[in-house]
């Protein structure tokens, strides 16, 4: 018995020894992640997939950058969850990168800006002339005040791409039902009724994540003007939560459920489920964003599809895409600016456009892919009307969850439209009061 104890103990000690050796080796590697103040390396983080439009364009931009400046790019692909949860901690430490993709909006970039974690890049913007390339609505999300409210103040980020919400439709399903693309709101409801009459629930929706809230907001926008958007998003004035726009939106959404346009089951569905139901042909209409475009192109093979603007509305959800931000503690800010400049060049922008993305500064002539051109033209049309109106969950950091929860209750019938509006209004007002 004693013998086997010794062998076991020896083996155990050997194992511990091996692990310790590995430990020292690892400790050696992991320490040196952030010491590149030599001006020769650019630490770059983003979280777009390698096959997405941005991923492809930025990979090319990295190549161009390394050729032109001779510096090396240390690129790390991050997970959105990690950046979202730990951004303020990482940027406040030595591990901050030189350039990073980050979400736009008061609750994200705005918050970091107000905490002093992002570098003020207004000078670089002027020097390189990026403000000339960006439409006004796109600039709104790049500038933040001292309190972290977008729209005014210094520049803190630069977007490479844009996004907006539109109506995707299944062209084959429409043709079979003998329906035309609706151009007015009445025609739209007529189309929806026609599908219901066939026994099909026309709208793909998801109540556990963002899609339902976005439809709600779109309905409100159809009754609203720019002033409403400014009040709602920039806190410039009071928002009447029992006023025309929001009452219309909430009641209409409830009506949609009653009329069978939206299934009452949506309270258990996620955005992924909604998207999939459009891809496999179950639902002929999907009101959602340009971020689906690339995936639809890859995965839909049973039918023709396209998009049309939400009928009867001049305003549309949308904004600039995620921003390139430069942390205040970045070691190589100049290199970061040079990289941003490269991403704004026509060639890189065209790459975004030709791969299913929405460039902010591309020439339509450079876009060779027909399907992508469709998307880009739709986006430009909205921009010309200054129609980009951001997203409903932006005003407060918890509004996303609140909106999801309240609309779930609306669809389930556990709260009336008025109650939902009042709950939303209460939370909105209690947060925004600090900014007025």
């Amino acid at each position: 018995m004693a013998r086997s104890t010794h062998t076991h103990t020896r083996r155990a000690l050997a194992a511990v020894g091996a692990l310790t050796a590995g430990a020292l080796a690892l400790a050696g590697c992991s320490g040196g992640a952030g010491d590149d103040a030599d001006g020769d390396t650019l630490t770059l983080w983003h979280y777009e997939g390698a096959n997405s439009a941005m991923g492809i364009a930025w990979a090319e931009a990295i190549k161009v950058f390394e050729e032109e400046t001779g510096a090396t790019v240390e690129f790390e692909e991050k997970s959105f969850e990690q950046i979202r949860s730990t951004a303020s901690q990482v940027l406040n430490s030595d591990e901050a990168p030189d350039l990073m993709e980050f979400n736009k909006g008061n609750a994200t970039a705005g918050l970091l800006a107000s905490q002093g974690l992002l570098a003020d890049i207004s000078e670089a913007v002027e020097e390189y002339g990026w403000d000339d390339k960006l439409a006004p609505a796109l600039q709104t999300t790049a500038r933040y005040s001292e309190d972290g409210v977008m729209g005014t103040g210094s520049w803190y980020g630069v977007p490479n791409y844009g996004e907006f919400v539109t109506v995707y439709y299944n062209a084959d399903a429409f043709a079979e039902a003998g329906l035309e693309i609706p151009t007015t709101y009445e025609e739209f409801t007529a189309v929806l009724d026609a599908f219901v009459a066939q026994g099909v629930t026309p709208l793909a929706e998801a109540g556990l994540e963002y899609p339902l809230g976005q439809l709600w907001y779109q309905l409100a926008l159809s009754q609203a003007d720019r002033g409403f958007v400014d009040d709602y998003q920039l806190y410039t004035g009071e928002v009447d939560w029992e006023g025309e726009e929001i009452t219309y939106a909430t009641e209409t959404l409830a009506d949609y459920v009653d009329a069978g346009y939206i299934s009452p089951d949506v309270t258990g569905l996620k955005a992924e489920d909604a998207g999939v139901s459009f891809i496999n042909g179950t639902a002929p209409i999907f009101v959602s964003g340009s971020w689906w475009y690339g995936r639809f192109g890859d995965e839909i093979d049973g039918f023709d599809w396209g998009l049309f603007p939400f009928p009867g509305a001049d305003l549309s959800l949308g904004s600039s895409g995620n921003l390139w931000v430069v942390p205040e503690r970045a070691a190589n800010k100049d290199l970061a600016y040079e990289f941003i400049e490269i991403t704004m060049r026509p060639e890189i922008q065209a790459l975004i456009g030709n791969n299913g993305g929405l460039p902010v500064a591309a020439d339509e002539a450079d876009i060779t892919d027909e399907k992508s051109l469709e998307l880009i033209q739709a986006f430009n049309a909205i921009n010309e009307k200054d129609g980009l109106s951001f997203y409903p969950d932006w005003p407060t950091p918890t509004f996303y969850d609140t909106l999801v929860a309240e609309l779930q209750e609306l669809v389930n019938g556990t709260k009336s439209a008025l109650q939902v509006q009042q709950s939303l209004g209460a939370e909105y007002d209690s947060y925004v009061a600090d900014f007025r």
Partner: protein
Amino acid sequence: MAATTTSAPARSRRTHHATPPARSRRAARPRGGMRKRTGVDWLMLTFAVIAAIAIIAPFYLILVNSFKSPADYSNGGPLQLPSALYFDGIVAFWERVNFPEKVWNSFFISGMVAVLAVLISVLNAFAIGIGRVKGRSWIVLLFLLANLLPQEALLYPLYYMFKAVGLYNNVWSVIIVFTVIQAAFGTYLLASVYGTFPKEVLEAASIDGASRWQILWRVIFPISRPTLSVLVIFFFIWTWNEFLIPLTFLVSNENQTVPVAISMLQGDRLMDVTTTSASALLGLIPTLIFFLIFQRTLTRGITAGAVK
């Protein structure tokens, strides 16, 4: 963030029950009567098997969806078998995140935590269970505090502390944190176990002239080894699946663990379901292997007990 509840069997307690030595000479007694399988027995077995199938059914879904192309998944739904086996997604993911590096990180962290936590637990339990220091219950409770605290509460203070000592973005920060958390449980359990350690054995060793340190490592440690192996396996599996703390303290990709790497597939609005499923499968394999080793330790415990 799996629901971490743990406990390890207090196996050496079996030595507390004195068994008559005459037992081993009972071999002549026919055991046939106990082995006959009645209808009720088969019914019970069926019941147990049905329960197993119900519990394991979701894993079948993971298997089915791990080898599908995204188009296949979107068009066919999650319940259907793949129309063609598709490996591109998982291969691309493997290379993109440098999966072997992540597996090594997870393995290293979980392994170190398991070993260190057991060591600390042994030392603590020695003092509490065998040394019977004053205020034992309160000391055990104090250690258990590490387990009681929700992890979110630890993040901000530890972030500042680790930053100050330069351990931010270092695997050792994670190892230290989890050693404390797991050792809390280990101390609680091992203290109960050591509390009923047979006095005769300790007295004999003491009479032989062994010091406390020697008794700990030459007598107590080997005898409680089955319990300790169980603790090692539990700690390994729990640490492997941890998400929040590695997410917060392991900033660079080269330090990250498997669960954090898998979260890379979940974007802001889109998600790569089939690759997530496949990578989850890959991530399960090491823990599964560890558990199967663990099973053998458990069964070995049966014979060890009988011999005593």
